[in-house]
């Protein structure tokens, strides 16, 4: 990649004082360029995705048949815990930050992110955080084994001794997210090209804007709760210990006050990506731009008052259960607005089914399935049965894998020509899509039935009647895992060569990023784009 971009840059016409660029490893270590940092985020996210995926493969291998075959129960718990942490904090979130870095300045007509050096810092602390987390596999204590939600007292009194490493790794991830989010908010508020008002920003920008607010609001709460965890485990405090006046349920309240906005942090950017791609391949403007902005904001606001729907079985007062049930169901309204708008955008459009569009349509359908199972889980009395079963696992994998991850793939295929200057291999990318689509449903759909039949999550062994479904789930899992290697092949091929991409490879696409060359020059918009381009990038229907 390095050589490729440098060659391209030398053809570039502009020679301002900052176009000087180091080569080799120093370029990546010292860079302040939003495109370099975006690339770093995306590669890091993909490596973490493969790492977390490898852990999941071992989990599915163990669950292929009943009984204990491959791993000890304690190690199984370590696998599920680290799989969750790596996928949430290492794969999905950094991937979206990578998109933000690459695309926001280009979409806003800005020369770079607002705080470029801090941008570098917020990326480079991440690999260190994951070095600590993954390194704990090789320590005396073993890796964290208390679930990615690290409930007390599993993570305090009954911890295997990995709590401190976990806590400090999470602190670094939190610092990284907060700095990244501050950079995004400031870039959007302060770096928009003259003439680009808030309601003229692409919806992609809006969703990242709102997501960044959520991050700044809740990552510090996560820092607070892991700090209490640390003092409970190592300094004798009793925040989560009834003997000293505390309450283990309080852990869940504080954790989910962070945790629920966190799940929207992982889906709102997906909405932004899909809202960019569906109009492009429907050759229409986005249906209901303003309502999309308001729906996204409503989802974000509601996310702060629904957290206890994760805790219906903890014995909350009845009023609490009712309040959180109704608030949770309310979220279906703005989410429904969004799904309706995507469908309405496609309605009577001249559709074409390039790979980004395929992933986007799959997103709309499969994310909606995840949304429906979420609605089922929102009902308190029903949740009493579903809680901690594979139904929950099915639900959040539908929203996270076929939701967030599919949107990331859609976005990656959509902008790969802009990033690399080459078109990706179309047939290989379709192989990736269809293999992923079939295997992911084989992987996660039967989990609904397993959960309804009562199979608990986070268990290395299960009763015999679950054997057939688990076998198919595991086969789906291996197939899905292998299919992701196709994506790796597509990306590497695309970086190394391929059909030359024009500045705007998709005829229906709008946005300032398509007004610059492909690959995007190292520095773009050192002077702001003309008003005409900004008006053309407006997503409103007229």
């Amino acid at each position: 990649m390095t050589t490729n971009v440098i060659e391209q840059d030398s053809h570039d016409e502009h020679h301002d004082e900052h176009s000087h660029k180091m080569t080799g490893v120093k370029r990546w270590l010292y860079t302040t360029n939003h495109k370099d940092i975006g690339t770093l985020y995306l590669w890091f996210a993909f490596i973490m995705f493969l790492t977390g995926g490898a852990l999941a493969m071992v989990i599915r291998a163990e669950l292929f048949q009943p009984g204990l075959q491959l791993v000890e129960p304690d190690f199984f718990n370590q696998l599920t815990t680290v799989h969750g942490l790596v996928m949430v904090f290492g794969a999905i979130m950094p991937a979206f930050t990578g998109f933000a870095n690459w695309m926001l300045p280009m979409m806003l007509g800005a020369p770079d992110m607002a705080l470029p050096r801090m941008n570098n810092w917020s990326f480079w602390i991440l690999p260190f955080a994951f070095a600590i987390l993954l390194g704990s596999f090789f320590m005396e204590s073993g890796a964290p084994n208390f679930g990615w939600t690290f409930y007390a007292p599993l993570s305090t009194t009954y911890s295997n001794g990995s709590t401190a490493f976990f806590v400090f790794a999470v602190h670094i991830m939190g610092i990284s997210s907060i700095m990244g989010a501050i950079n995004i908010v400031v870039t959007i508020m302060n770096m928009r090209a003259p003439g680009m008002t808030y309601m003229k920003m692409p919806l992609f920008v809006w969703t990242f804007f709102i997501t960044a607010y959520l991050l700044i609001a809740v990552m510090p709460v996560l820092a607070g709760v892991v700090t209490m965890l640390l003092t409970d485990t190592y300094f004798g405090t009793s925040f989560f210990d009834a003997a000293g006046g505390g309450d283990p349920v309080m852990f869940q309240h504080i954790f989910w006050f962070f945790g629920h906005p966190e799940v929207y942090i992982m889906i709102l950017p997906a909405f932004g990506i899909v809202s960019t791609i569906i109009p492009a391949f429907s050759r229409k403007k986005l249906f209901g731009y303003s309502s999309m902005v308001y729906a996204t904001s409503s989802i974000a606001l509601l996310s702060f008052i629904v957290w206890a729907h994760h805790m219906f079985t903890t014995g909350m007062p009845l009023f609490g259960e009712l309040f959180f049930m109704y608030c949770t169901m309310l979220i279906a309204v703005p989410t429904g607005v969004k799904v309706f708008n995507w469908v309405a955008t496609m309605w009577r459009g001249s559709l074409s089914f390039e790979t980004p569009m395929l992933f986007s349509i799959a997103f709309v359908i499969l994310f909606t399935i995840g949304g429906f199972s979420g609605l089922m889980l929102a009902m308190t009395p029903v949740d009493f049965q579903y809680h901690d079963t594979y139904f929950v696992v099915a639900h959040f994998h539908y929203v996270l894998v076929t939701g967030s991850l599919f949107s990331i793939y859609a976005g990656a295929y959509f902008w790969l020509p802009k990033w690399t200057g080459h078109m990706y291999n179309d047939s290989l990318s379709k192989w990736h899509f269809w293999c992923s689509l079939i295997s992911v449903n084989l992987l996660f759909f039967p989990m609904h039935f397993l959960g309804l039949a009562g199979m608990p999550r986070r268990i290395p062994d299960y009763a015999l009647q679950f054997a057939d479904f688990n076998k198919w789930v595991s086969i789906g899992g291996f197939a899905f895992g292998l299919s992701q290697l196709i994506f790796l092949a597509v990306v590497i091929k695309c970086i190394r060569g391929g059909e030359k991409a024009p500045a705007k490879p998709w005829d229906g696409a709008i946005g300032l990023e398509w007004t610059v060359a492909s690959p995007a020059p190292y520095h773009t918009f050192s002077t702001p784009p003309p008003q005409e381009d900004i008006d053309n990038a407006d997503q409103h229907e007229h």
Partner: protein
Amino acid sequence: MTNKEYESYYVPDQSHWPIVGAVALFMIAFGAANYVTDLKNEQSGYGGYLLLAGIALVVYMLVGWFSDVIKESLSGKYSHQMDNSFRQGMSWFIFSEVMFFAAFFGALLYLRVFSVPWLGGAGNNAATGAVLWPDFVAQWPLLTTPDGTTTTSMGWFGLPLINTVLLLTSSITAHFAHTALIKNERKPLKIWLGITILLGVSFMGFQVLEYAHGYSEEMRLFLDSGVYGNTFYLLTGFHGMHVTLGCIMLIVMWFRILKGHFTPENHFAFQAASWYWHFVDVVWVMLFVFVYIL
């Protein structure tokens, strides 16, 4: 923004400070994790040294990074828009700090309103009280925990009240310093900022005295004295760390003023330090009300 002449935005060259900072954070995190793990297992290890080295490296990084920024600022590379980026960045950073304290205040309120009364049998928890700890009496401050640990509570009169007056006054003097800076009156600026720093340092001194008092045989108020001691020390402790950081910022500002930095129009760093100081002050007022008085 629309009608203004476009100013070019300064995008800095490559910088090695972030990666130095990343290594430093790694040393702090890995060192601290090893340190507390060894502490718990009653072993000795290298964790503490790694932690200290990491802190030293962070300080080195901050000095280097900020001096780069100051150099760029003094050489006039920063536009009005850049100044805005810094201001907004600092505001959101302070907001994130507010949310960090919100987690601990939230815990305090949850403990006081829910968990302690429930342990005493309130709500539908009569059985909890009767079966687990029949002798437990729910009260706040929680001086006797369910498992029988006893302690005493820190009154609001005396040191805490003095500290409140000190910190509130320091916020006012910080504001006077800012006003003086805007009017370009350098001498009152130095004096008011100097007084602010002295007030801040005195606050920290009294806080140390208060902790010594808490840990005395007479009071026996320890970090692990049940949830009263937990919330007391964590809230005041994190606040104290923030006062320390704020003081360091103000001291740096004072030396920069001696060197003739800042103009009435251009003084983001001073503004940021002063915002931070006001924030620390507001947190203290909340602490004084919810931890000491009520």
